[in-house]
């Protein structure tokens, strides 16, 4: 068995990364649709070693590979020489690991049980202090090995940073190949993709319900924009807004009891609230302009939205039941697609300047505006549920692609797909 390149000692992280990508050993399965490229130099990253889990080759999943990729993609960690045979029962030689440059070490195993399930275990050590930080054991079905690897990554991330990890969460997005559109759900790393909707007509604006069990979206299958709500597990769906004109931009309230939508039924695009079954419709904006792209604040009390009532599109905030909106974006003449961080403190949106569309953040208390992207065709930023990453769509080399970025814009990863355009990403909630 040949050791994959990432286990060779390489002083330069970038060279190591290039070697790993070239060898294709980065991802667990050869048929992965996405490949991750990391650009940008991080500030201080925590060096960590993740050794190959004992017997993971026999499990069919590179569990350690998934953990390494997750931690690296977060931007918070860099992976150091992780060669050698270890498991959760090992007694690490801390001096050896320190000389490899590791501050932390993860080792584990994946043992097949008699009933066909797998017993996955790991342990985490603080190499600097020479301390055992504990571990976990999971008994899981073969089909859940990938999810379990993500859970290990989440646990390590939380133990070492204090923040919740998002590696076990899911994202939804839309793909397009010629006249075939799909609404797809994958793990946060782009793997394990499943199709929620197949169509020959466009699909836009998917939106997760807060419990992660439903997706609302806009489908043009009937010849115009109609809002649907679909149960992810069963595929059962209902058209919840199919009024005269266009129905779009669904957004769930944090308690899941209300949806905000944009309807043109009164002759102009305005924002309405409704129940998740489409009832109790009430209009909450009253302008002669375009009001659209509503999004609830995490406390459910306000709604950010886009309006061009001032002449060009800007982001406004109003009480969730409607009421006097106040303008929130003042930098630039075109600001759209607001997303609010889970702590309610940061607004991410798209700013157009000199024909370039870029993901921008606004610190709502200080008013500081920051451009965090270096591409020019960005769309629809969406926060990860731990507030540490933003996913968005952009264009690169003639393709629609998805990017994730840390909030300071320093670490960006590109999820490259082979031959399909991907757009409209939306990050799912915790709780899988």
């Amino acid at each position, binding site marked *: 068995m040949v050791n994959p390149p990432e286990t060779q000692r390489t002083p330069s992280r970038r060279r190591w990364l290039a070697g790993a990508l070239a060898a294709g050993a980065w991802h667990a399965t050869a048929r992965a649709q996405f490949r991750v490229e990391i650009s940008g130099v991080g500030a201080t990253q925590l060096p960590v070693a993740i050794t190959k889990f004992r017997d993971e080759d026999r499990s069919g999943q590179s569990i350690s590979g998934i953990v390494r990729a997750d931690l690296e993609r977060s931007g918070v960690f860099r992976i150091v020489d992780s060669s050698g045979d270890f498991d959760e029962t090992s007694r690490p030689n801390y001096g050896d690991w320190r000389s490899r440059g590791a501050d932390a070490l993860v080792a584990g195993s994946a043992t097949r049980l008699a009933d066909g399930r797998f017993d996955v275990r790991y342990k985490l050590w603080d190499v600097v202090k020479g301390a055992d930080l504990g571990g976990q054991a999971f008994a899981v079905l073969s089909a859940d090995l990938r999810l379990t690897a993500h859970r290990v990554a989440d646990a390590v991330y939380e133990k070492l940073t204090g923040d919740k990890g998002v590696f076990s969460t899911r994202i939804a997005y839309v793909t397009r190949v010629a006249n075939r559109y799909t609404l797809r759900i994958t793990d946060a790393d782009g793997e394990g993709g499943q199709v929620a909707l197949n169509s020959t007509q*466009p699909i836009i604006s998917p939106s997760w319900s807060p419990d992660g069990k439903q997706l609302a979206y806009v489908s*043009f299958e009937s010849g115009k*924009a109609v809002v649907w709500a679909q149960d992810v597990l069963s595929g059962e769906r209902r058209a919840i807004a199919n009024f005269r004109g266009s129905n779009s931009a669904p957004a769930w309230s944090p308690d899941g009891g209300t949806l905000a939508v944009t309807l043109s039924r009164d002759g102009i*695009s305005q924002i309405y609230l409704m129940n998740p079954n489409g009832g109790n419709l009430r209009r909450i904006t009253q302008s002669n302009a*375009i009001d659209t792209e509503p999004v609830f604040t995490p406390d459910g009390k306000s709604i950010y939205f886009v309006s061009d009532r001032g002449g060009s599109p800007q982001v406004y905030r109003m009480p969730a039941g409607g009421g006097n909106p106040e303008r929130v974006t003042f930098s630039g003449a075109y600001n759209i697609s607001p997303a609010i961080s889970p702590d309610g403190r940061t607004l991410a949106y798209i700013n157009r300047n000199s024909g370039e*569309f870029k993901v921008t953040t606004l610190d709502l208390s200080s008013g500081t505006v920051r451009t965090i992207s270096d591409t020019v065709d960005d*769309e*629809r930023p969406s926060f990860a549920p731990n507030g540490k990453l933003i996913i968005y769509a952009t264009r690169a080399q003639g393709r629609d692609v998805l990017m994730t970025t840390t909030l300071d814009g320093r670490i960006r990863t590109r999820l490259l797909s082979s031959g399909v355009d991907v757009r409209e990403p939306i990050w799912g909630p915790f709780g899988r």
Partner: protein
Amino acid sequence: MNHLRTSLCAALVSACLVGCGSSVKLDDAAPVVDAKPTPAGGAGAGGAGGASTAQSQVATVDATKIDPMAAGKLGRVVYFDFDSYALKDEFRPLIEGYARVLAGNKGKKMVIEGHTDERGGREYNLALGQRRAEAVAKSLVLLGASDSQIEAVSFGKERPAVDGHDEAAWAKNRRAELKDR
């Protein structure tokens, strides 16, 4: 066809009698259709008017100016400037033509599909496309169609007519299409 002719005739005659009620500036050469056409069988149809009209009078309707197919010859697409939903003068004859067709056939329905070029966000562009479609729809209604005959919808930037990433392509995508239903 007879019904169409009668309705158009009635509308034309009543427009001439009542005068133009539209607030839209129109080319003087084109006949004006009243915003609220009178129903078939109204004043002037078939000469069933007042004492001043001779019983044998026949009013001539010049159908060459109300050719229902003329609108089709003018095309079915209205183009727009960047970031704009204003109807340009060059498309007024097209819209007038369809308005006449709709005014003359209350059973006829059309859908106006608004579009934008590829630049910008999908939802905002959906709303911009909707605005373009609504502008055409409002114009049709002002010129004689009924609100119930028309639905304005939008595809935003999702259905470009032309692939391309330059102004030549973008100009062809900023449009509203008039389609029969």
